[in-house]
């Protein structure tokens, strides 16, 4: 049972290391999906998705260094 839990934790750890980074990415994808559906100009959603990823990355590493 412990071994299974360990394997599950490792697989989850492949995608989620810093929880706030994962949550921010998921929110960004959800927001981009909403934009693509509603505004009828999907490329704008693409720009938001791409620029959002860069902003999330910068914010996350800067915050990580402040934490210690």
């Amino acid at each position, binding site marked *: 049972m412990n*071994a299974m839990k*360990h*394997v599950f934790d*490792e*697989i989850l750890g*492949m*995608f*989620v*290391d*810093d929880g706030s*980074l*994962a949550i921010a*990415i*998921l929110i960004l*994808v959800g927001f*981009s*999906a909403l934009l*693509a559906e509603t505004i009828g100009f*999907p*490329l704008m*959603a*693409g720009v938001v*998705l*791409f620029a959002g*990823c*860069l902003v*999330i*990355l*910068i914010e*996350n*590493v*800067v915050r*990580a*260094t402040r934490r210690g």
Partner: protein
Amino acid sequence: MDSWATAGPAISASFLASFVEIVEAFTIVLAVATVRSWRPAVLGTVSALLVLTLLVAALGPLLDRMPLTALQLVIGVLLLLFGMRWLRKAILRGAGYIALHDEDAAFAAETRELQEAAARREAHLDRMAGLAAFKAVLLEGLEVVFIVIAVGAGRGLLIPASLGAAGACLLVMAIGLLVHKPLARVPENTLKFVVGIMLSAFGVFWTGEGLGIEWPGGDAAILGFAASFLLVGWAATAFLRRRAVEATP
């Protein structure tokens, strides 16, 4: 194969990411072989490879049944999570905020653990050693399988991506057999930085395709995304490194 703009990055991403994962698995397998013998190391490795083969054989056909846009969206999001996690870690390591991964230290830790178990005269030591090799190969192998599927499935590039991973496996085995010690000189953080950039670029591209976005330039947009992630990653590493130096008394 659609174009070199897609196939080239897919093969390179698969090769480089798999190289990093296989080096990590090789370190543990070598530690097991050094402390115990090659028998449990090989048995553990072969068993893990069999489990991985069964998993791929069982789950692989499911990929064909998924609608392409849903597949692109799921894989794109997973790539974003996976790639940006690597990139974040590589930036923090490059800037000196977290320690670099050290294959020599990983080898020493695994060796020490097995030697302590031997000192306690634990029964079934070979089984324990074999399990250590099994776990390492299975977990790192799962990452390789994910990377191959992620960079290959969205555009029918599974074979080139698999070839990239197989090439990495052969190269690590060849170097490992030659030097017979942990591959500590591999510039792991640089590789993770590059792979993080490529996987994040693929992640943006596939997620966008899954959302119905038609990227300007088609597949070539991946190169533009990669260049932007590279610039931001470099700038962030340089800025944080300078700040760390200035903060040091």
